[in-house]
């Protein structure tokens, strides 16, 4: 019993630390990748004893800067909620990771460890339940600042989040129909097979439209370019204008954590999670007859590595989109969400259900 | 935990909801108290469902949550309409039918 609790605790600490590290590195990637894309040099000034490490120390200097800046609270603001709102945002973004499987079952010393913090029966729903709570941080932050512009920004942001949550929810129903389960770990297991020996049975192969819709709506949900109207740091007054120092940092960090969450969910639902093609429990079995035997621990670690590799790929892809596309207008945003994405995702559900019914 | 614990807790929550409906004047608070009562009843249903090993009670809770969601959508729209008509959400101000 005590050992079980310890194992769950260690898993939770592992995933939270990993995600926070991803978030911290993303603050640097955001600047460095844009610099590379725009043929600049980018963040490279921070140094320790002349050591620059391609600008990685900027993460550290940013953290020091944010923690030491003045924490400003508007005089007429609701002090308690003003403090609470960014914490809620960050908290709900982090909690979702408890349901995401980052590896298969690991057997250590006769103990089976499911590499997923909380093995829930309906973990997809759990993730959506918690994601839908993220709107509180935004709307409360906007309201508590006692500033009409930030309040309007909060309403705008929450309208956007709620609209696109609908599309996200409907977009994955097609995949759920195929997987026949709401358990993320089971979904990943389902994606372990191969068609014709070389096409992996991943969600992206079975549900290409669902994948696309999920990714687009997900990017809108993370409130990043091209859907960054709630924030638009330099041009649009958003819900966080009255925030400074680490409280603002928490909002900013939530965005990066949500990027990681979107990447992790897309990986789990559509890119086979921790599955590696041709890798079975006892090693690689290639269709041309070659087989490489591997011990259990190596296989488990390879799968965890594969999961995080896919996440990193999707993060890179999101950054690519973020620095490529221009921002949409608010009416365009709502039109994309309700007139194009939602009907398309509904059509996706109908077609998937009909096909499943036909092929039994 | 025995079923009594859950049932007594549900009873306390239900009573808080009833008292809220009786003492508050703000239509929104009254509405939220009603939601609290619905939640308390859901807890008793889940308790019985758990201790009788019968999933029917949980299906009933599912429907009750659906109805609550629909009720809130219409109810809040009504409150907003009333606010636009009378400029208040105080239940004592809605006295057009009195003379």
């Amino acid at each position, binding site marked *: 019993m005590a050992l079980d609790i310890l194992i769950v605790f260690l898993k939770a600490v592992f995933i939270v630390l990993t995600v926070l590290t991803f978030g911290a590195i993303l603050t640097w990637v955001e600047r460095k990748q844009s610099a590379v894309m725009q043929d600049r040099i980018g963040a490279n000034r921070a140094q320790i004893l002349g050591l620059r490490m391609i600008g990685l120390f900027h993460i550290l200097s940013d953290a020091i800067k944010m923690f030491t800046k003045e924490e400003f609270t508007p005089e007429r603001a609701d002090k308690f909620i003003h403090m609470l709102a960014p914490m809620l945002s960050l908290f709900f973004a982090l909690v979702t990771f408890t349901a995401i499987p980052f590896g298969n079952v690991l057997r250590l010393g006769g103990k089976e460890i499911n590499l997923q913090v909380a093995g829930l029966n309906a973990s997809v729903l759990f993730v959506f*339940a918690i994601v839908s*709570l993220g709107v509180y941080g935004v*709307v409360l932050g906007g309201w508590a600042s006692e500033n009409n512009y930030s309040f309007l920004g909060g309403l705008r942001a929450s309208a956007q989040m709620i609209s696109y949550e609908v599309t996200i929810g409907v977009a994955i129903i097609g995949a759920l129909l195929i997987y026949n389960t709401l358990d993320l770990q089971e979904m990943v297991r389902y994606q372990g097979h191969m068609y014709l020996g070389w096409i992996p049975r991943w969600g992206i192969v079975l549900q290409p439209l669902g994948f696309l819709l999920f990714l687009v709506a997900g990017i809108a949900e993370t409130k990043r370019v091209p859907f960054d109207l709630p924030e638009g740091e330099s041009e649009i007054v958003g819900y966080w204008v009255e925030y400074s120092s680490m409280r603002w940092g928490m909002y900013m960090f939530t965005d990066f954590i949500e990027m990681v969450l979107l990447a992790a969910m897309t990986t789990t639902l559509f890119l086979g999670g921790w599955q590696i093609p041709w890798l079975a429990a006892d090693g690689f079995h290639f269709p041309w007859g070659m087989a490489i035997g591997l011990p259990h621990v190596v296989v488990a670690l390879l799968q965890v590595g594969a999961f995080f590799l896919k996440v990193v790929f999707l993060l890179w892809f999101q950054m690519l989109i973020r620095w490529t596309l221009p921002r949409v207008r608010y009416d365009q945003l709502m039109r994309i969400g309700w007139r194009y994405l939602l009907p398309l995702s509904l059509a996706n559900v109908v077609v998937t259900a009909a096909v499943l019914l036909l092929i039994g | 935990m025995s079923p009594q614990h859950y049932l007594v807790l549900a009873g306390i929550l239900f009573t808080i*909801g009833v008292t809220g409906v009786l003492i508050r004047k703000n239509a929104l608070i009254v509405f*939220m108290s009603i939601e609290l009562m619905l939640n308390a009843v859901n807890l008793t249903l889940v308790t019985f469902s758990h201790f009788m090993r019968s999933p029917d009670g949980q299906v009933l809770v599912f*429907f009750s949550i*659906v109805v609550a969601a629909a009720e809130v959508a219409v109810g809040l729209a009504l409150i907003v309409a009333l606010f636009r008509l009378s400029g208040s959400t105080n239940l004592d101000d809605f006295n057009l039918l009195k003379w």
Partner: protein
Amino acid sequence: MTAFLFYVFAALAVAGGLTLILHRNPVYSALSLIVTMFSLAALFAMLDAQFLAIIQVLVYAGAVMVLFLFVIMLINVRLEQRLPQRFTAQTAVAVALGIILLVEVIQIGLTGSKMLGPVATELSAKEVGRVQTLAGLLFTKYVLPFEVATILLLVAIVGGIYFAKRKLR
């Protein structure tokens, strides 16, 4: 461990409920109701009703209370704070009635387990609350109420839009 968790969440739920009806600021009332709903979701999970626990958070905390918060923030918050909170005869009577009701429901709750019927199915406690079990019932035994519920939701959408869009004199 279970007893400890039960008392923690029960205390949170009751504290949330009391704050809901006693706090002057409706935003805090709404937030405390969210706390209560979360505690109830945790209690559902302790009663092996995993699916309902998630639905409770998804629908109540994630959708219903967001709506409440929107409406409170948009129309109400300044007004309520100016209202004098008088202790009237109505309040006294309401509290007295509340206490009587409390005694009654606690009495019923304590004897309620005697009304507990026999164990109805051969399902284990874990299986009762699983998605598969509930979905199976929803699409067979309760398929008519299920369809009626969808129509109800449609009616609610139409009604909500009608009230929101209507031009008032």
